[in-house]
């Protein structure tokens, strides 16, 4: 009698604790949908087509991830400042949103290994006379607030001690301001710069050169404590490169030399 009660109690406890330890990876598989935070004014990573549907590298990447998990993908549009609250509130499961893996941010969210790498390019208004990164000294420059390149550029402007730095809230606003001549030049990821110049929607701007900043590695992110999911995501990124899908997507959306995602001389 005593033993059966004990056994029942143990069983119940196992069942309950099993329930309590279902992690996010289990939740996603059980729910059948993967909700990705994607920034949609950041071509070619995220954009809208002529009927205002989401397209882009990040959108495809999310779909691949969903396929690997055996679930359907749901793209949740999040402006840059909205990425983290959306994750924290459980509105999205994973951020596939070109998020630079800074140490400062890793205090708040869990970052995977890099899934994409940006080089920084200088784009200038043709009338400004800016022909290289050095020419930006003393000019009015801008970038998307809070991004890797914005932080670096603001630091440069402070070091030069001349000119003005303006952070805009979206990448689109930066290029709009640049094409209107509100700012003389901007530093952005070269993929974004090329994609925007190529559209021909912004007359009078061109990519004039590279910016001497470190490569901006961006990673997927999810809640800091979800090791199971982060593990899965790391392997997924590895597989994407291994199977050539990364190269395929890169060719489809960006084109040109495939950037390496590995950092020389160190483990992660």
């Amino acid at each position, binding site marked *: 009698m005593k033993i059966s009660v004990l056994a029942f109690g143990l069983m119940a406890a196992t069942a309950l604790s099993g329930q309590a330890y279902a992690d996010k990876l289990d939740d996603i598989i059980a729910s059948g949908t993967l909700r990705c935070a994607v920034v949609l004014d950041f071509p070619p990573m995220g954009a809208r087509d002529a009927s205002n549907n989401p397209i882009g590298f990040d959108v495809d990447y999310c779909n691949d991830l969903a396929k690997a998990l055996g679930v359907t993908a749901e793209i949740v549009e999040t402006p840059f*400042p909205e990425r983290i609250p959306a994750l924290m509130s459980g509105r999205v499961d994973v951020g596939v949103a070109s998020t630079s893996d800074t140490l400062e941010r890793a205090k708040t969210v869990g970052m995977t290994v890099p899934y994409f790498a940006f080089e920084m390019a200088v784009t200038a208004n043709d009338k400004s006379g800016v022909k290289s990164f050095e020419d930006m000294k003393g000019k009015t420059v*801008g970038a998307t607030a*809070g991004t890797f390149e914005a932080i670096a550029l603001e630091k440069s402007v402070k070091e030069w001690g001349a000119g003005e730095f303006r*952070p*805009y809230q979206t990448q689109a*606003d930066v290029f709009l301001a640049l094409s*209107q001549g509100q700012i003389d030049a901007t530093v952005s990821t070269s993929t974004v710069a090329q994609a925007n110049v190529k559209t021909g929607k912004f007359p009078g701007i061109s990519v004039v050169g590279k910016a001497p900043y470190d490569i901006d590695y961006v990673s997927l992110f999810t809640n800091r404590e979800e090791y199971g999911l982060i593990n899965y995501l790391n392997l997924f990124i590895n597989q994407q490169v291994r199977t050539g899908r990364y190269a395929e997507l890169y060719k489809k959306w960006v084109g040109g030399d495939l950037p390496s995602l590995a950092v020389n001389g160190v483990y992660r």
Partner: protein
Amino acid sequence: MFSYTFHWNQAFRALPQMLDGALVTLEIALLSMAIGLALAIALTVFRLSGNRVLSGVATAWVEVARNTPALFQIYMAHFGLGNFGIHLSPFTALLAGIAFNNAGYLAENFRGALKAIPETQARAGRSLGMSSLQAFRYIVLPQMLRVAFLPATNQMVWAILMTSLGVTVGMSSDLAGVTQELNARSFRTFEFFALAAVIYYLIAKAVTLAARLLAARMFRY
């Protein structure tokens, strides 16, 4: 329920930076109020002038300022005018947007205040040999300002709140801009914005108090 750990010390370390931002916020609010007040008086004169073009301009101004979002007005001042090659810096665009908005609302307040001043007073002034402008300047305007003082105080608080919209046009030195910058860097949204909210509250209260003291001084009989 809360698996989130607050990092308050990170926010407090940024306090000096945010207080610098608060000064810029106050500066924009005060400037926009001064410009808005001057414009509003001009608009009121236009409306009373009887000149069709002038009063049409004034009415259009007031209606647009009151019937479109302030965010829209500021966005328009930066990117809309930029389309014509008129480049306002974020600071100027923000200031222009808020001043435009202030002028519209204040002019409407003045319209209400004017109703409270019997027309016979201005007529009495005219019969004493004042020109219509003099009658406005010496008889109507002082009373109008008195009646409109309280609504104008509210508008001042509004102006402070509106400065937070500058982040959409690349403003980074005011309180909202500084806060958003800190937030984008660290993703610690709640801590930084809660601190900003407290600072905004204190500024708003300080301004209201100052206005009350000023009113007690100015409008003593």
